[in-house]
């Protein structure tokens, strides 16, 4: 199973590590965006199925609204990945859940697989421990 994934993360090292992990797992990373503007531009190109979105970006705490926009207007499945999960602990419409950073490869793999299963309407395994689902 492969998928086109967008990484929205302003810390270059964290973004690069995440890209490597996802690519090792066979996913296609369409790009890493440090802010909402670049993320929107990449999403507009189309074909993005899943976005891993940090909340604090280089243009401020714009990740929350960006995630909602990606989910509701671009039809992208959105998982937040943040060191401050408290910012979205009440859930954000149009998005799926949140992963707390730092996290490990296992958690990322399980969370991404789970999210894609749900997106494709396939029977999903149990919610992976590291993933906090909304609603």
């Amino acid at each position, binding site marked *: 199973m492969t998928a086109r994934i967008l990484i929205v993360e302003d810390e270059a*090292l*964290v973004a690069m*590590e995440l890209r490597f992990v996802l690519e090792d797992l066979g996913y296609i990373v369409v790009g890493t965006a440090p802010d909402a503007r670049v993320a929107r531009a990449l999403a507009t190109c189309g074909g993005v199925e899943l976005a891993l979105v940090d909340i604090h970006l280089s243009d401020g705490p714009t990740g929350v609204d960006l995630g909602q926009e990606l989910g509701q207007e671009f039809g992208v499945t959105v998982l937040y990945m943040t060191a401050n999960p408290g910012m979205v602990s009440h859930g954000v419409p149009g998005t799926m859940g949140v992963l*707390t950073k*730092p996290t490990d490869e296992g958690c990322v793999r399980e969370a991404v697989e789970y999210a894609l299963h749900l997106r494709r309407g396939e029977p999903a395994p149990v919610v992976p421990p590291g993933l906090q689902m909304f609603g």
Partner: protein
Amino acid sequence: MTNPAANDPDAIEAERLRVLRSFDILDTDPDQAFDDVMLLAARICDAPIGMVSLAVGDRQWFKAQAGVDVSDIGQATAFCLYAMLQSGVTQVCDASLDPRFADHPLVTGRTGFHFYAGVPLIDDQGLALGALCVFGTRPRPEGLNETQLMTMDVLARQVMALMERRRALYERRRSDEAATAAVEAALLVTEKLAESDARFQAIADSMPQMVWSSRPDGHHDYYNARWYAFTGAAEGSTLGDAWGDMIHPEDQQQARAAWRTSLDTGEPYEIEYRLLHHTGDYVWTLSRAMPIRNAAGVVTRWFGTGTDIADMKRLELAKALLSQELSHRIKNIFAVISALLALSARQYPEARAFATAARNRIAALARAHEFVRPPTESTRPSLDGTTLHAFLRDLFQPYDDEAAHPRVVVSGDDADFDDQAATPVALFFHELATNAAKYGALSVPGGRVTLTTLQQGERYLMTWQERRGPPLNGTPEGAGFGSSLLALSVEGQLGGALERIWAPEGLRVAADIPVTALTPRRAARQLT
């Protein structure tokens, strides 16, 4: 009047003096009305001398004389003192033949008085005050005739009537004077009050704070100039209960409730609210009031102040924002370090296990910081689930079984912990859990752990008990870094005691730490 004992001359004398003074007649100038009576008495009795004498102490005092030299008057005392103590008219027809008066200078001397008639002056209480009398130079064996006797009686009563009138006038004058004095005193007090009020107003108006006062029933009856300048309210428009309308609608209810409570209990009033500024904005204000009590302890008045604390509020907000920003950055740094480790390890496959272990420890630290109390709030009780138990449940969540039931069950007394305690707490439990996952109860599907926390006085006891894991064979040989971390965390950083027992049914770890070790910042603040 008092009723002095008849046989106590001193008491009678004192009473007489008191009554005479009440007429305001002693030592006053001659009075035409008395003179007229005297003249009439002398004329009708066909005598050259008429007199009204009043007994004052041991002397006689003569209010009116008709036809007598001043130098002789004093000598009439003996006659009058005698007459005033008799009832009716006393007559001495020929003093030269009367043994009581024959040697009296008025009789033997130049005046050559021979005849005397006197009638006592008796007040409405029956007290003799003196006598109305006439003197004659020739003896009058026949005495006064009936008309003359009657005239003496009538005139004596007339003298008393004149004296009563004087008394009435005197009393009215006195009460007028008293009234005037009272009015003057009241005026003086008012003046002083006005002066002190003016002084208070001057002080109150020059204060940088808003000042107000209120009656015990909560009715506001004064505001200083600063209040009106700050709020822009029209002078007097906020008296009574209208002050509440100047407060931000969201704060009104709370302010009114606090004020009501203070009025009911007499407790000082203190509240922060947003007050309408004359610019139309609401400004954060600290409002305080103290009750003024009378000698009986009853609240007679409230004095209050309002202080603009907008700057303080702005600083507080800026501080909170800064604190939040720092907290975000700190947590982000953990993510960056973790990513750096992972990226570095990619080059060296043999370092992968090391990198994973290090990253997991860093992740535990990062998670702990998600749950610590921000330093700015550490004095408040935690209400939002950022407690030790909440953190531990989150930390152990990856070890849940397939039905999402926790395999590490946390129970007992919960506690807050702050950022200084976060590192040892996180590392301690992370090591216990990863160790259990490798070698202990969490390494097999059926294994379970109970973590019980117990606060006993100043101590906080945490007991980690593994069960249904692989059987243990006593104390493992050689202590690894993980083991060192356990000891370092509990004994070093938390200042507690650590006990590990490798019982056959499972590892048991007991950490006994001071309660204050979980919130060292709060403890330090309380010490200073």
